[in-house]
């Protein structure tokens, strides 16, 4: 088993993307390898200008709940999702974009953040990452 984390980012919710990115960065910071496979609603967050667009998974209240949580996060000096994405890349993390989701949802490559994405791929690539990972998560 390799010292590696392979995480599926299925949710596009803001709080869940925070979880995925903090875990991914945490793995890299602990000297592990890490990959994030963005699929379905998660993939929407890789669209240009889409990183911060996700709702809160609970008590979003048409955006009011999200606004409150973001305000609290700012007070607590929590890093932005964009910074966590950049850190993840800088530490050598892999960001994988699910190409089947792109087909289903009519997302084209030019709609996505090519600067962040390491590969456009399918289940085979994820499983190849996951088969020898010590940590696998579905978020």
């Amino acid at each position: 088993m390799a010292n590696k984390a392979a995480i599926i980012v299925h949710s596009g919710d803001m709080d869940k993307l925070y979880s995925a990115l903090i875990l991914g960065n945490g793995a890299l910071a602990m000297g592990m390898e890490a990959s994030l496979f963005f699929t379905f609603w998660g993939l929407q967050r890789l669209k240009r200008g889409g990183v911060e667009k996700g709702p809160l998974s609970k008590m979003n209240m048409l955006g009011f709940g999200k606004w409150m949580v973001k305000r609290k996060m700012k007070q607590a000096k929590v890093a932005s999702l964009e910074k966590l994405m950049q850190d993840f890349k800088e530490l050598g993390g892999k960001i994988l974009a699910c190409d089947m989701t792109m087909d289903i949802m009519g997302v084209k490559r030019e709609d996505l953040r090519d600067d962040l994405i390491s590969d456009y791929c399918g289940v085979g690539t994820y499983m190849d990452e996951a088969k020898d990972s010590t940590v696998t998560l579905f978020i």
Partner: protein
Amino acid sequence: MAEIKVDCIGETCPVPLVETRKALRKAEEGDIVEVTGTHPSSKKEIPLAVKAMGLELLDIEEGTDGVWKIRIRR
């Protein structure tokens, strides 16, 4: 041998851990990375990361104002 300072005072999870890792990646073998911060869990977790990566933890200092300082040799 260079000494690299990383200021994480006031930062929260996972920034101190991530910034430490970034500095260690940029450092050359033998360089010293000195991280200062206030996030309590990071004080415990940075040494865990140092151990996991097989690097040398030189010392951990704790000030009275909640500021800690960790020195690592790459």
